[in-house]
């Protein structure tokens, strides 16, 4: 009198394990991921790894090409480029990740509310989303920088508060259809409240695309910070950031005469953005629920 058991007791891969397996099958993602892990370690250990103080001026060593004492050379003020690069990458990475987290938190929460409660809540949130989307983010951040002295926190909040609409729209769209699923009705019948249904039952189901969107937002954040700092409205000197280092090379004489000042930060920006995008693409493939169904 027992039901047939299609899978008996064998250990079945959980959806997470399946996703990890698929992710690791992605060659570029492995390269990108490895690069990001190494970069994270380097920036985390910046105080130990950086050979010099990134803001210590040493006029005697100024404008040196890469040599054995300064692997990546020094800038006009004699600051060590490698040390500035490590600390600069740390700022860029922190800004990128923190901005993505802020933006995901806002986008996820608003998207869940809009999709779940519908009606006027949805209308208000979606109109608000459209208003935010219609702002030119960069110009807005520049204006903000004029009003408030920009620092890591203000840039993170600035980027975070203007880049959530995509996440919000993705989440809302999914929740609108998921909320009509039978298991949500079953949850209500079992006495689950709205808050529980939204955060415990719907949130895990929208997590996959949200993770992908967050990853890509990290890349956007790094780029946006670099752009802002390059234009002089981001991280302020003498604090290093990858964009701020490029800002100091705007002079044509430096651009031509001291290429070591811009090649290395430029490469690190490109490489990290590329790496984050590779990882994002692989995550998209790994977490795609249709693929999970096919693999099962």
């Amino acid at each position: 009198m027992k039901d047939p058991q299609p899978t008996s007791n064998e250990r079945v891969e959980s959806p997470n394990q399946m996703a990890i397996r698929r992710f690791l099958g992605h060659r570029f993602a492995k390269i990108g991921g490895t690069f990001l892990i190494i970069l994270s370690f380097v920036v985390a250990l910046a105080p130990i790894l950086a050979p010099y103080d990134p803001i210590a001026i040493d006029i005697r060593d100024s404008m040196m090409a890469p040599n054995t004492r300064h692997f990546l050379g020094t800038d006009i003020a004699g600051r060590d480029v490698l040390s500035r690069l490590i600390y600069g990458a740390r700022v860029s990475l922190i800004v990128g990740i923190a901005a993505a987290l802020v933006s995901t938190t806002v986008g996820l929460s608003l998207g869940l509310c809009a999709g779940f409660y519908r009606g006027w809540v949805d209308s208000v949130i979606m109109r608000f989303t459209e208003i935010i989307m219609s702002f030119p983010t960069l110009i807005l951040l520049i204006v903000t920088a004029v009003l408030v002295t920009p620092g890591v926190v203000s840039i993170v909040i600035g980027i975070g508060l203007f880049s959530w609409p995509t996440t919000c729209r993705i989440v809302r769209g999914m929740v609108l259809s998921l909320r009509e699923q039978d298991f949500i009705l079953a949850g209500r019948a079992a006495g689950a409240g709205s808050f529980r249904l939204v955060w415990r039952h719907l949130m895990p189901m929208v997590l996959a695309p949200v993770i992908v969107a967050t990853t890509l937002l990290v890349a956007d954040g790094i780029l946006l910070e670099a752009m802002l700092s390059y234009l002089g409205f981001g991280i302020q000197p003498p604090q290093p950031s990858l964009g701020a280092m490029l800002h100091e090379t705007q002079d044509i004489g430096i651009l031509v005469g001291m290429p070591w000042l811009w090649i290395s930060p430029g490469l690190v920006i490109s490489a990290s953005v590329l790496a984050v995008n590779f990882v994002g693409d692989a995550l998209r493939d790994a977490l795609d629920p249709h693929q999970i169904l096919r693999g099962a």
Partner: protein
Amino acid sequence: MAEHDALVHAGVQKPLLSVVHLRTDFVLANSVVHAVRDVTFDIYPGEAVGVVGESGSGKSISALSIIGLIRPPGRIVSGSVTFQGRDLIHISREDLRKIRGKEIGFIFQDPMTHLNPVLTVGRQITETVRVHLGLTAAAARARALELMDLVELPHARSRFDNYPHQFSGGMRQRVLIAIAISCNPQLLIADEPTTALDATVQAQILDLINRLRSELGMAVLIITHDMGVIAGIANRVAVMYAGRIVELANVDDVFLRPRHPYTSALLESIPRVDHPVARALYTIPGQPPDPTLESVGCMYRLRCKFSLPRCEAEVPQLDMVTPKHEVACFTDISLDTGEPAPDLDPS
């Protein structure tokens, strides 16, 4: 059951659930669907009441109305639902939420879609007891394993961390039942619990519900369109047609002495083993009435062999023909049909 009936009729026992003149509408852009037009019935502690009727007769909507799960554009227009002395229609949402899943369990038709596919089965069973009984994670896990044994899910321990897609339909229905009974409810509402399952599994699930009812002493409201399911589980039967209960009686009376022409037609349309294969299956002529029409007269009159001029003008109300047999019809077919009542063996 005889003892139980005696208590009920002596008025000693109070109903667990009382539904009185319930009316639920769905207001659409340019029409109003009257899903439930007028439903009145009681459920006493420990008894099993079956609600039978064709698709669109308002069975499921009645059940969802009882636990307040009618969502816009649907709305309960009038009537009352009283559960253990509490008015479930005017109760606060929070109080109603605490009753759902704790005092009233609910099982759904399709076990494939009523479990969250991204959460483990164990997590979904423990969640209910944690919410309603405030158990710790460890106590909830123990309770969930106990429930999985109770609903005869094999290998509870190793199956605890499985996902719903790793379970068969019958096993998923057992999981839903485990969730529904997890807090020892006084009432279990089962909305077509066997419709999505194949015949052998249906029988197992009905056995399980029967067993749990006697072990846990809960009342069961079972909704189905399958007369066989009703025969196998219910003490009393409510036959619904077009949003109204047209006949309400003990299961034997409904099967052996139906008083409403619709009930009798339903019974006649059951395929029978003892009929020659060549004989065409009996079907009730016509279509169910348009649910957006206001009810004028008896909704069944256009398909009824016995309709009278009176049926067009007046809505027949549920009337007691015997103390335990209520019928909403102006004709008493048990008197004027020459045919013997169909004898259906419930087993």
